[in-house]
């Protein structure tokens, strides 16, 4: 039941839209409008999800008033933000103040140009795609600094300087971890990186199961990406209990909405990069077993969108989960983690991958080693979660409110 769209990974989205509309110009417009609409919709859903998930974790109900189960709450919030007066503080540097949120949003949105959402759907199949994505999201620092400096507020300045130090530092382990995926695929093109992880073996072909060093890089990139999105436990630039709201203290209305949108856009973008690099992007995880061609049945452009969404959204969920569980690190601990823990391990991962790719790749021994290591890791996780966990007696139900 596949739609009759040919895989056009090597031509990019314009040909995809051209095949839909028969008009290259219209195709370009659609090509650029797609991610924009997507980011906006995703933020809408993710904000609601974050509220509901945090409410679930905290024994609350979360938004319940606007619409059934509060489903329209984020829409109401957006309406409120749109209606708000566009305030620029008197002491602020107006130009820098206004341009800050725009830079932040554009840099996070621009990364979507190269993200491959399916075999037939990538904004642009750039041959240096991953490099472009990493560097364009790093531009966010400029916007954050502009926000902090332009606000003419000491707390905002602290937030901005913290953000600059943090994001620039965490680029390094993140970049090295990305390099591991790139080395394994032998290309910087994100679409080709995904294609390198396809095959009959399904989930076994994903890079994270191909080498033990990919496991390491996978974990490192996830931690570093948390820091790059300013998510907890690395949300120091916007540390609400220390810096009031960090670099966006002075922002309100649509400017605030843009910063907010960029944060959620960024969360999703790094999750997509993570799943593309290590978890096979839009590839189906099912293997072909003998005559049961499960992999072939569940592959295709539309299936691909489903797979990459499942993978990325589960990372977004983990990001939300961590945010509502962990306290915040201190500035020096943040830098310690980056420079003395993540960066050395990232170098180990890069070197290890190089050796692995030269000598062990595709041998049966290597797959065995990977599975043993992976299995041990999973067993350890289960042990930590279910067995080592302290036994807590269940609280009896109480009905105190009765009069």
């Amino acid at each position: 039941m596949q739609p009759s769209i040919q895989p056009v990974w090597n031509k990019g989205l314009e040909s995809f839209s051209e095949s839909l509309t028969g008009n290259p110009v219209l195709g370009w417009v659609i090509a650029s409008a797609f991610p924009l609409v997507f980011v906006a919709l995703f933020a809408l859903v993710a904000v609601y999800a974050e509220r509901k998930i945090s409410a679930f974790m905290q024994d609350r109900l979360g938004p319940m008033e606007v619409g059934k189960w509060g489903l329209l709450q984020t829409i109401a919030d957006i309406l409120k933000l749109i209606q708000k007066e566009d305030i620029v503080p008197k002491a602020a540097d107006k130009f820098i103040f206004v341009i800050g949120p725009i830079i932040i949003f554009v840099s996070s949105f621009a990364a979507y140009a190269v993200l491959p959402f399916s075999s037939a759907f990538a904004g642009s199949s750039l041959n240096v795609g991953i490099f472009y994505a990493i560097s364009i999201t790093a531009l966010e620092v400029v916007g954050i600094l502009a926000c902090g400096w332009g606000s003419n507020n000491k707390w905002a300045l602290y937030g901005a300087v913290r953000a600059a130090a943090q994001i620039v530092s965490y680029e390094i382990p993140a970049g090295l971890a990305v390099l591991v995926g790139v080395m394994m695929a032998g290309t910087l093109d994100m679409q080709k990186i995904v294609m390198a992880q396809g095959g009959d073996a399904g989930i076994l072909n994903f890079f994270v199961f191909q080498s033990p060093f990919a496991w390491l890089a996978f974990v490192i990139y996830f931690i570093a990406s948390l820091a790059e999105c300013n998510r907890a436990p690395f949300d120091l630039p916007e540390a609400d209990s220390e810096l009031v709201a960090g670099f966006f203290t002075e922002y309100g209305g649509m400017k605030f909405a843009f910063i907010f949108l960029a944060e959620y856009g960024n969360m999703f973008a790094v999750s997509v990069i993570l799943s593309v690099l290590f978890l096979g992007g839009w590839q189906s995880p099912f293997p072909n077993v003998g005559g049961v061609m499960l992999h072939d049945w569940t592959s295709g452009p539309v299936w691909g969108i489903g797979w990459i969404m499942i993978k990325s959204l589960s990372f977004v969920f983990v990001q939300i989960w961590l945010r509502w569980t962990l306290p915040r690190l201190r500035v020096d601990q943040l830098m310690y983690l980056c420079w003395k823990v993540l960066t050395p391990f990232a170098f180990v991962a890069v070197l290890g991958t190089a050796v692995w790719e030269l000598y062990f790749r595709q041998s049966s021994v290597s797959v065995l080693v990977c599975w043993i290591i992976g299995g041990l890791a999973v067993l350890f996780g289960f042990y930590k979660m279910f067995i080592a966990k302290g036994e807590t007696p269940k609280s009896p139900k109480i009905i105190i409110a009765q009069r």
Partner: protein
Amino acid sequence: MPELILEKPLAELLPVPSGALVEKQLKTEEMVLNMGPQHPSTHGVLRVELLTDGEVVSKATPYLGYLHRCFEKHAEALDYPMIIPYTDRMDYIASMNNDLAFCLAVEKLMKLEVPRRTEFMRVIVVELNRIASHLVAIGTYGLDIGAFTPLLFTFRDREHILSLLEWLCGARMLYNYIWVGGTSHDFPPKFKERVGEFVRYFKPKADEIYRLLTNNEIFIQRTRGIGVLPADVAINYGCSGPMLRGSGVKWDLRRDDPYSVYPELEFDVVVPTADECVIGDCLARHIVRAKEIYESLKIIEQCLDKMPEVENFDPQAAVPKRVKPPKGDVYGRAENPRGELGFYIISEGNTKPFRVKARSSCFVNLSTLPELAKGQLISDVVAIIGSIDIVLGEIDR
């Protein structure tokens, strides 16, 4: 040799080497950072002026008075029973404890005997309120460190205590329950059972705080060894409560200057041990609060057992028609969740006190802030303020 007479010191007249000049021009300046009175982690309307060099705080000066309501002057114009609602509003997180401290002082002045059942009722509500207060302290401390979820967990359980107390006297925070010579109401029927139910419910929930916050690696990293207050410094400043016990001094007025029925009850004075924290740091103060919750639960359980049942008990029977203490002065004190709350009352033999002076534990504890915050990072200053556990209502009065 003739002496050189120079207008300026020699060093300033000599040409400066170019490297030093650059360094001089690039010199950083200290920045004054105003923290509060509207700041999420100053716990109300505290204003702290920080002198910062980068992220390092070189000087912290607290400025008080944003919540000053002239309690002491006001009290001189009021009858004794009318002062009690004002004491409610001092440490509004633990109002029952304030009421008790004030009533103890007045009762001491009047040499008033309180019925035994009333004493137990007082201890139960006071300890319930102590738990509620520590829950707020722990929850907001987690918030200061950046963990949001413990706050909601502690407030969920505090809600049960508040509804118990609301059932008892109609108010959720400002109770006016403990009166001079008695209480305003007897326990409602089934109230004791409900309190026992709460204790059984809450014990596992208190462990939950440990698992979520106290044992969290990041939390320990953030608080361990931060804001260390040595025992002698704490004593010299006059600290009390968890602040003093966190520094390893076993001092609890319930044990060392016992009042009410506390001598009959068994409980430990919690001090931290050196293997779980650095004695006197933020983590130690947090651990003291977390463990005191268990002690309060113990006290409540014993009180529920020992409390005598009296037919048609009138808690207002011993309340004097007119509270008119004899001439003289008195200092009465009680162990509040935040430390020693004392009232010094001078009576001229009237129905109104001549002078009331409140000795606030938060005020004294906060005075250590400039010493503790010196040379720490901004995030640590937030952690230190949180660990002192201030309530501005009591500091400013």
